């Protein structure tokens, strides 16, 4: 019997015996995710329950799709879904583009001191929380005494009220997103460039290829796996937003809501005084399912191009 399993080279047991050590090395992480991620995942049922304290998660009565109703009846579901999708796509593309640009430019810099200094500087925004950024932005841009408008008025021009113009925000928000995260993102690409084989570059250089040509033909293609993995990871979060950024920078500003409303801000506004677990779970589930569908599609496309690059 045992020999039969052992001889069956496709078998589960055979694999376990052959690579047992490797699987054992995976165990700590596996156990962690089982406990801290899969176990609580059963709580998805809360989205379909009328939660009460005595019944808890399992004992509370079911209420079908009732928790989703506010979401659908708000009449804004389509709009916020599209907004979320567009903003996050914009963020992801801008983030990747600037991270790569910064990483390549820094890695080509001659001076080590400059490399270090610039990188540290680019990292600073990561530490400023959105609440503080919001106060900063308000102080820079507000109509009455903002630094920018003081200057603009000084030049004899009309002051700008950015908080009244919905068209500006699709630019302002990605700007701050990149501002906050580019230091973070470029680190990965720097590491990836550092891991690249230098010989290729040298050979090409001797052949007379200039640096721009080498970046296009050697550096960038080698960054492709990193780009794809970041893309896939980003797509997996595409329906969740930087809630804090939207909430703090924009505020609940009626004039900007149509242009800046994402799923998370809609849910926050609707539930701010409700304290209802079921309703917030329902929104979370909606986001999860959309993310799931989108990632399956994107991963499928990647898989067709290059199987080894796909996430799963």
């Amino acid at each position, binding site marked *: 019997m045992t020999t039969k399993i052992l001889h069956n080279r496709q078998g589960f047991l055979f694999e376990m015996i052959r690579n047992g050590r490797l699987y054992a090395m995976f165990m700590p992480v596996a156990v962690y995710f089982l406990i801290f991620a899969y176990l609580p995942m059963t709580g998805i049922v809360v989205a379909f329950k009328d939660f*009460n*304290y005595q019944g808890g998660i399992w004992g509370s009565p079911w209420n079908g799709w009732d928790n989703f109703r506010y979401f659908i*009846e708000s009449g804004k579901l389509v709009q916020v879904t599209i907004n979320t999708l567009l903003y996050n796509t914009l963020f992801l593309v801008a983030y990747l583009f600037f991270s790569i640009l910064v990483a390549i430019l820094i890695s080509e810099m001659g001076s080590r001191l400059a490399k270090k200094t610039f990188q540290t500087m680019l990292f600073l925004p990561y530490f400023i929380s959105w609440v503080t950024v919001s106060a900063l932005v308000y102080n820079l841009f507000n109509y009455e005494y903002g630094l920018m408008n003081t200057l603009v008025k000084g030049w004899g021009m009309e002051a700008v*009220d950015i908080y009244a113009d919905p068209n500006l925000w699709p630019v302002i928000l990605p700007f701050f997103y990149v501002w906050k995260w580019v230091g973070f993102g470029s680190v990965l690409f720097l590491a990836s460039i550092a891991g690249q084989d230098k010989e290729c570059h040298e050979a090409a250089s001797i052949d007379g290829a200039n640096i721009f040509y080498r970046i296009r033909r050697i550096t960038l293609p080698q960054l492709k796996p990193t780009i794809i993995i970041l893309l896939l990871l980003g797509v997996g979060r595409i329906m969740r937003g930087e809630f804090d950024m939207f909430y703090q*920078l924009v505020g609940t500003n009626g004039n900007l809501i149509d242009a800046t409303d994402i799923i998370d801000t809609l849910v926050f506004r609707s539930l701010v005084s409700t304290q209802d677990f079921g309703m917030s779970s329902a929104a979370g589930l909606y986001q999860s399912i959309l993310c799931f569908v989108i990632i399956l599609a994107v991963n499928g496309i990647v898989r067709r191009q290059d199987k080894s690059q796909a996430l799963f």
Partner: protein
Amino acid sequence: MKKCLHLLSILAFGLLASTGIVAQETKITGYLLGSGPSGTQDVLDALNFKLKADMGAKLELNYIGWNELGSKYPLVLAAGEDVDWVYAASWNGYATQAVRGAFKELTPEIIQKYMPRHWKATPSEAWDQAKINGKIFMIPTSTPDRKIPLAVIRGDLRKKYGLAPVTNVAGLEAYLTAVKKNNPAIIPINLGSGYDIGQPFFALLNNEVPPINFVFGGSVFGNYEDKAHSLVDILEEPYLTAFKKVANTMKSWYTKGFINKAPFANTVLSKQSFAQGKSAVGFGNSLDIQEVLSKATASGFDPEIIPILSRTGHSPADSHVGNGVAIAANSKNWEKTLQLLDLIMEDPDYVMLVYFGIKGKSYDLTPDGKLTLPAGVTPEKNPYPQDAAGFWFAKKDLFPPQATWTSGYIELRKKLKDILVVNTFVDFNFNPGKVKNELASIANVISQYMDPISIGAVSDVDKAVATLIAKLKSANQDKVVAELKAQLAAHYK
């Protein structure tokens, strides 16, 4: 060997003694809102010293931060462990949580038995207000806050421009115009996000409509002086015209630059910028304005108070359930917890300790019995400022008057008893369970379509109001109103 035994016996004795002490002191865990000021630990130590002597209990105090309220407050109750009592209030979803079974039911007998002082100090209507479907789940405060909403303006500027005293927010136009014209550096009204948003609008609207008070958050309010508990929809005639008139006034103020352009992104509240001289009008209530008044007086602004009242000259008194405590449904030591709360809520020594801290450290008394700061302690450095620690349910009648009260403020306090009237809806707790989806939609509509109208940031008032009405309709406000009426009818039958 003998020595060894001796040592052992000492050890054993020590162990016994320590477990004995643990057994004697019952640990009671409570939750308050906000975050304790820096001196909290010292006060808690002093409190526990007293508690140990008086009833053999030890209080462990935890805080639920302001913006964790929506998530952590229900979570702590859902976990139900390590919690004996928790701050509760009508504005913090008391009814919702009680209906879901978060709190232990209390009866008058239980209260009489374990909280004799509090039972004596609390009028019977307080317990009626705390009733949800006929059952009590909260210990309401014996002394509700006595406060009214108000605006403050700068008396020095008003006099400088030769304007008559202002008694109503509607009479501010001349003052705002003069300030705007003569002081380019001052923003007449610098509203912050949150609290400030609806303040000027409703202050103006109050002059036009019956005395209204918030019922559920949409456009329908309760007439708080009407014994018949009638409802007022401010978006229906005869009030719609008034609503539009006020909206137009706000729009003109906004366009003239009397109000800052982007209150929604401004984190500095109007009263803070007023205190620092950045703006000329501040909004607040008669309790939280004290600090602003003394600061403004010190800066020579000569602050003048404009009470915000309904057209009858009244303001609804806070209910007893505006501040209170609930016992967690699974509390094991609820008897001791009630006894402890009886001390904290009613005993003069305990009340002074939890509310004002340690005498000589965070407060002192003047020879004539007024409350003041100890020598060398400034308001900023006070380790335990009043109100900050969150024991808002303590008996406020025990508080001494304060040395920093300005004459205008003392005058206002005297007037309060004529201004405050009983809110006829005070014992009614709306149970939102059946219409929670509709309420969520309405909350959403109000912030998107009502708030811009209320600060005047709309280009066409008629159109904006029409949109608001249509959106409230599609958010099914009618259904909520029907449910509200049904619950009212059932409650006041």
